[in-house]
């Protein structure tokens, strides 16, 4: 695994002396960040889209209109969205332990990232779904389609480019959250930048951390754009 990064090492040695010295630590941080981002993205995408659908269909006059749920669910979503991430990490510690058996390391970071991101994604997905003309739902009902079929075959498909945009945006926010989660024990590039770059005045490590995070962000945006182009929007 480490050898794969060795050719980069030769290149950076003269400009980034501390990076060369702590190379093993740097590579570990990159792997940790990629793990955090990819695993949480999987959960966030599935749960966020699901919650987004729920938010839309329970609203007034929609397919599964429900007054009680429509009072409770949006408020819960707003509540979780308004808690600052670092505080959320500390607050849900018992829940994190219950879910993954530990509150530190990559698994310990993934739980709070997912909890923080799902409401965010859900709101974005909700907006994308609301873009679909209400008349399209009337049309689908008039053809005698069942409600689940309308949600999954019509609503999701019509809103797909909006959903892809929402997921791209969320994946980028997620990189930011993963950097913060590092500080509270998740490891990763954010942790590296604070503990080495900041605390030990190794500014080359800070700079490298920045470049790495930027690289990941550009990569994710690129994937998003590619998918949108393939969808033809």
């Amino acid at each position, binding site marked *: 695994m480490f050898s794969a990064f060795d050719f980069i090492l030769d290149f950076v040695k003269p400009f980034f002396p501390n990076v060369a010295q702590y190379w093993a630590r740097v590579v570990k941080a990159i792997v940790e960040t990629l793990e955090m981002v990819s695993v949480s993205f999987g959960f966030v995408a599935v749960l966020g889209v699901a919650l987004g659908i729920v938010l839309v269909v329970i609203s007034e006059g929609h397919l599964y209109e429900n007054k009680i749920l429509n009072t409770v669910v949006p408020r819960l979503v707003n509540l979780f969205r308004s808690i600052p991430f670092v505080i959320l990490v500390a607050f849900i510690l018992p829940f994190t332990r219950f879910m993954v058996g530990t509150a530190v390391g990559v698994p310990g970071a993934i739980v709070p990232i997912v909890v923080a991101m799902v409401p965010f994604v859900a709101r974005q997905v909700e907006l994308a779904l609301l873009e679909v003309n209400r*008349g*399209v739902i*009337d049309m689908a009902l*008039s*053809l005698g389609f069942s409600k689940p079929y309308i949600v999954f075959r019509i609503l999701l*498909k019509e809103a797909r480019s909006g959903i892809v945009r929402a997921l791209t945006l969320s994946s980028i926010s997620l990189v930011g959250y993963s950097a913060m989660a590092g500080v509270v024990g998740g490891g990763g590039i954010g942790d590296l930048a604070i503990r080495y770059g900041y605390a030990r005045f190794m500014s080359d490590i800070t700079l490298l951390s920045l470049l790495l995070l930027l690289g990941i962000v550009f990569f994710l945006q690129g994937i998003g754009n590619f998918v949108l182009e393939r969808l033809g929007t």
Partner: protein
Amino acid sequence: MRAIEVTDVFKTYRTRSGSVEALKGVSLHVEKGDIFGVIGHSGSGKSTLIRCINRLEKFDRGSIFVGGSDLMSLSEKELRQKRQKIGMIFQQFHLLRNDSVYGNVLLPLTYAGSGKAAAAEKADRLLTRVGLREKRGAYPSQLSGGQQQRVAIARALANDPEILLCDEATSALDPDTTHSILALLKELNQELQLTVLIITHEMAVVKDICSNVAVLDGGKIVEQGKTLEMFTNPRHSVTKQFANSLFEQDKIKEVLLGEYVKKVIGSGGLVARLIFKGEKANDALISDVSRRFGIDASIIFGNIEIIQSQPLGNLYVAFSGPADRIAEAVDYAAAQGVLVQRVAENAERR
């Protein structure tokens, strides 16, 4: 059996800011194979009415029978099956943007579980019928409004419905396209014995294809009957408005204020509106009257509308000559089956 039977339907929308009575006891029935129009101004409740007929909207009281079954007694599943037999097209077409023309038409067929080959064959046939076979691969955004509505019609017909509901289906289209869509509906009505219910605010639509019409105003049906008769002799003020818009009646006001009319009336003449129906419109009544009674009859304004392929003539005629002859002439015209309305005459004559 009647295709649609609406009896005393009430519907009130309740919102936080108060309630709106959209339908206040609407009753109408549509015979099988008929093209029935419901005309009304915006806010008259006509959209609510058509949405009640496939229960996109629930109503509070009354009953609606479609094809013999009571809509309110159907279970969710039965309602879905019923809706497959009630096609609907909309003002904004509502095609799926992310599906091709073919995909849009295929959708109800795959949902209904037709085999792949059968569904493809039928989608093709429907697209050919609406004249868009060569556009099957196009996406809705690449089509004109009229073409989009044709795709929507093909999609609505996929489940072989007995009834087609048209909710302002031509209101977003220009007059020529409106005409071609209406012609298509008429053809489908005759080929498939399809019952068509049209909701509109445009007289042109009713005039073109509806054999029966109901006028909706303030959530009530104020007048209904055969289209030609309704607009020959409208009774309710809203019906009169629609009839007047058909005959461009506002223009006559200027003509009546003109010098010529003043002169005719000043010399004891009379301006009358003559309404001819059916074959009467083709008779040479004006010259006949003129010769027979030795008076002058000049047409100052007029038009002939074709309603349901029957001509309906609307003429404003200024008669001048001896008063008694004019009176005889008018009686004679009325006796010939022409509807006569006195529009302007000398006050002393009364």
